[in-house]
């Protein structure tokens, strides 16, 4: 490895750092002012790229000049900025006061809608962009060729940083942004027009995302997976840098760019893992990122978003429970094979969703990566059966153990944080697990996964397997429900309501949260193991972000304020999904719109509606 090679490697790291910074700076600005972590920022990036591959070639038809190329890039970014304004006015304005979990879910709804809109407008095929006129050549650096466009990109990052600095320190708008990032309520109390400030910030944020996307077109083709891959990276940059801090984002982007370009030489397979590991270490040492500030202390405590009461089953609930149990057991007798399959899956998702609500609703631990433990349980079971040659029974015992073991490992870091940082770290860990399953092809089968995960002979019929699943899931849910009513469950609620008070009465909050995280991971792992056998296969989508979102959507639909809401939510969500998905090509659009509608008009879900009904009766 000679010196020239190292320099070029480092330069290419700077080029990707620069692009990443442009995108992340928009995300961090929007978070600083609105306190919303905008999942749709990745969608803006993708839209920027699609706009650019449409607009730029059209402009270059007139004259192949660098000027027109960059005009096209700026026009694309501006169009995306306007889309950001539309999103702020139509959606975000209604979200500023809702809990952060709901904000994240609603902006993820936008992600789903944009994905389908992009497929509809531009089709599923990747669209390569034109190279930039005047920057198509290579430059000789220490005996190595280096693309001129990459050199240009290296300059873009510091230029954007400089322009943002001028904006933030020399204009009234920028000073207001900084003030709002420090203390939003005070800015409001001073009589600043917040609506204009927030709308303007969204324009700026979306513009930067669109600019980042448009600048990528000479390097990568526009494709419909760009949004989620960039958003996790941008999250990592903003979290490491400190959310709301633009210089922090710059510093973090440079570090990650270098880590990636040199990490790939030393550990080519696990670059993604390295990045998330860095994030975990930074958050443990500096819980608010490198240059971030602690959240301003909240005023009077508000009622937490989660399980508020733990009532016993009344006569009505007992009747409903009996009917549901009988129906569950009667499905194989009366239903056809398809109905049995759906009922089996509903049971599995009910256990997974219940274990998530044990964390979110009961413990106030907003996990955005619960699919990791579900998926790791599935992989443990699936790999033991296919590669390990074990029968189903020990594999089903291994599944919850694997889920719990990884939850214990990841949870050790997770419980050190709170709020949005905690949610981001759970997401990051889920992405590590996803990346390992995706990239470790020899063991996990990569993208295709592994097939042939079949139950033992005695449980191979759909009906018998249904009873096996019913036994596991009903017992699992009953056990977790019992824990919610036990002192341990109450302790978690206490720590959620007031960490300070819990500490003062002698509760080790972190330790209890860690135990809860492990327990919930184990239950999700069991659900995942059962799911692997019900499908007969495993693949990385089981631990992907959309899977985690599905679980959260189940909670949202069922209502996370009640103990049993998650079960109702899982049943309703899965049946609706199973029914509608074959009927439409735009399932994601429909799902995204439904999530947004739930957050805005129906935040207490089915069990909230049931509670209202009971009070009226």
């Amino acid at each position, binding site marked *: 490895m000679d010196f020239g090679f190292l320099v070029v490697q480092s330069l290419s790291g700077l080029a990707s750092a620069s692009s990443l910074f442009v995108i992340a700076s928009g995300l961090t600005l929007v978070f600083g002012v609105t306190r919303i972590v905008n999942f749709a920022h990745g969608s803006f990036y993708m839209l920027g790229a699609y706009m650019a591959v449409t607009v730029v070639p059209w402009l270059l038809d007139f004259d192949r000049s660098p000027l027109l190329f960059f005009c096209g890039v700026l026009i694309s970014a501006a169009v995306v900025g306007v889309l950001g304004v539309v999103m702020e006015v139509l959606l975000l304005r209604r979200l500023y006061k809702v809990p952060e979990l709901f904000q994240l879910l609603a902006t993820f709804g936008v992600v789903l809608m944009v994905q389908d809109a992009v497929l509809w407008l531009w089709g599923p095929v990747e669209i390569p962009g034109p190279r930039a006129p005047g920057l198509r050549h290579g430059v000789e650096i220490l005996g190595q060729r280096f693309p001129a466009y990459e050199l240009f990109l290296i300059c873009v990052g510091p230029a954007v940083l400089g322009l943002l600095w001028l904006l933030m320190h020399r204009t009234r708008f920028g000073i207001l942004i900084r003030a709002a990032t420090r203390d939003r309520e005070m800015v409001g109390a001073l009589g600043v027009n917040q609506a204009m400030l927030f709308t303007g910030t969204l324009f700026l944020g979306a513009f930067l995302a669109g600019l980042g996307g448009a600048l990528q077109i000479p390097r990568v083709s526009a494709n419909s997976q760009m949004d989620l891959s960039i958003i996790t990276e941008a999250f990592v940059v903003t979290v490491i840098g400190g959310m709301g801090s633009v210089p922090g984002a710059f510093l973090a982007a440079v570090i990650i760019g270098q880590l990636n370009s040199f990490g790939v030489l030393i550990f080519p397979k696990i670059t993604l893992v390295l990045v998330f590991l860095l994030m975990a270490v930074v958050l443990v040492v500096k819980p608010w990122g490198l240059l971030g500030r602690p959240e301003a202390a909240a005023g009077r405590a508000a009622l937490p978003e989660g399980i508020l009461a733990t009532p016993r089953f009344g006569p009505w609930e007992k009747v409903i429970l009996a009917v549901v149990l009988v129906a569950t057991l009667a499905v194989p007798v009366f239903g056809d094979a398809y109905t049995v399959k759906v009922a089996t899956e509903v049971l599995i998702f009910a256990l997974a969703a219940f274990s998530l609500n044990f964390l979110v609703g009961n413990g106030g631990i907003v996990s955005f990566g619960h699919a990791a433990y579900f998926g790791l349980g599935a992989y443990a079971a699936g790999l033991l059966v296919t590669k390990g040659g074990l029968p189903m029974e020990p594999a089903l015992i291994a599944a919850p153990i694997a889920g719990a073991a990884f939850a214990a490992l990841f949870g050790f870091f997770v419980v050190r944080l709170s709020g949005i940082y905690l949610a981001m770290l759970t997401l990051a860990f889920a992405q590590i697990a996803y990346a390992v399953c995706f990239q470790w092809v020899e063991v996990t089968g990569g993208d295709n996964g592994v097939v042939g995960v079949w139950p033992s002979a005695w449980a191979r019929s759909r009906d018998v397997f249904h009873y096996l699943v019913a036994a596991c899931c009903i017992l699992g849910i009953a056990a977790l429900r019992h824990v919610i*009513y036990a002192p341990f469950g*109450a302790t978690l609620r206490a720590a959620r309501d007031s960490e300070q008070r819990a500490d003062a*009465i002698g509760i080790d909050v972190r330790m209890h949260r860690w135990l809860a995280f492990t327990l919930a991971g184990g239950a999700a792992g069991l659900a995942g193991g059962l799911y692997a056998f019900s499908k007969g296969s495993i693949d990385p989508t089981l631990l992907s972000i959309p899977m985690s979102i599905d679980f959260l959507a189940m909670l949202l639909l069922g209502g996370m304020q009640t103990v049993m809401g998650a079960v109702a939510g899982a049943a309703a969500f899965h049946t609706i999904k199973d029914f509608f998905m074959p009927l439409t090509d735009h399932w994601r659009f429909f799902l995204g719109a439904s999530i947004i509608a739930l957050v805005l008009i129906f935040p207490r879900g089915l069990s909230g509606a049931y509670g209202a009904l009971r009070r009226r009766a």
Partner: protein
Amino acid sequence: MTLLAAEKLNKRFGGVVAAKDVSFALAAGEMLAIIGPNGAGKSTTFNMVGGQLAPSSGRVLLAGQDITGLPPRQVCKLGVGRTFQVAQTFLSMSVAGNVQMALIAHHGRTRDVVADAASLYRAEALALLAQVGMAEAADRPIGELAYGDVKRVELAIALAAAPKLLLMDEPTAGMAPRERAALMQLTANIAREKGIGVLFTEHDMDAVFAHADRILVLVRGEVIAEGSPESVRANPEVQRVYLGQSGHKAALRARRGTHG
């Protein structure tokens, strides 16, 4: 005997000295008030005793045992109950549920996954609530109570761990005057009856002069006077530096209150 001893506590925040060689002692059953103008270092001193802040130097001894720098949950286990300036309670629980939770923690059963939390230690919780006059409200959600009543429940929560020492940070802040006197009287009665030492900070001079056995006066992080309410009230330096004209009136008012 000495229940709590602070020995030469110092705390610096960057260049700011928030507490300088603060020393004091507190006996069982005694009520010691820390007073001083804003920024005098009351809360800093208080938080160093409660474990919320680690002192830059100095020691805190509880019944002879060094508790300097221990986290709050361990300080609690050693017999220190605490109430906060803004009451901290478990909002999703009932009044009794809050006290039961404290009892569950005190008995080390927070990891119990078998028992039924709603019925555990209920009788003990009701007895504690009766002590603070809140037994009737046992099954109401704590979020529904008036603030003065929340403060009483918080006192019951603090008493659940059978503390040797109670730390009360501005116990009467945000309360109506009549409620203040009642809460302080209640605290004094319980402390004397059970031999609990009480360390409290307070802005309300009526409460301080009516109920404290001894008063510690802090100014700019330093102790400028310590002694009985009478001696502190008579101390010319305290009058000059801290009480000033309006404070002097408060002192007179307090005297009328206690003697008349």
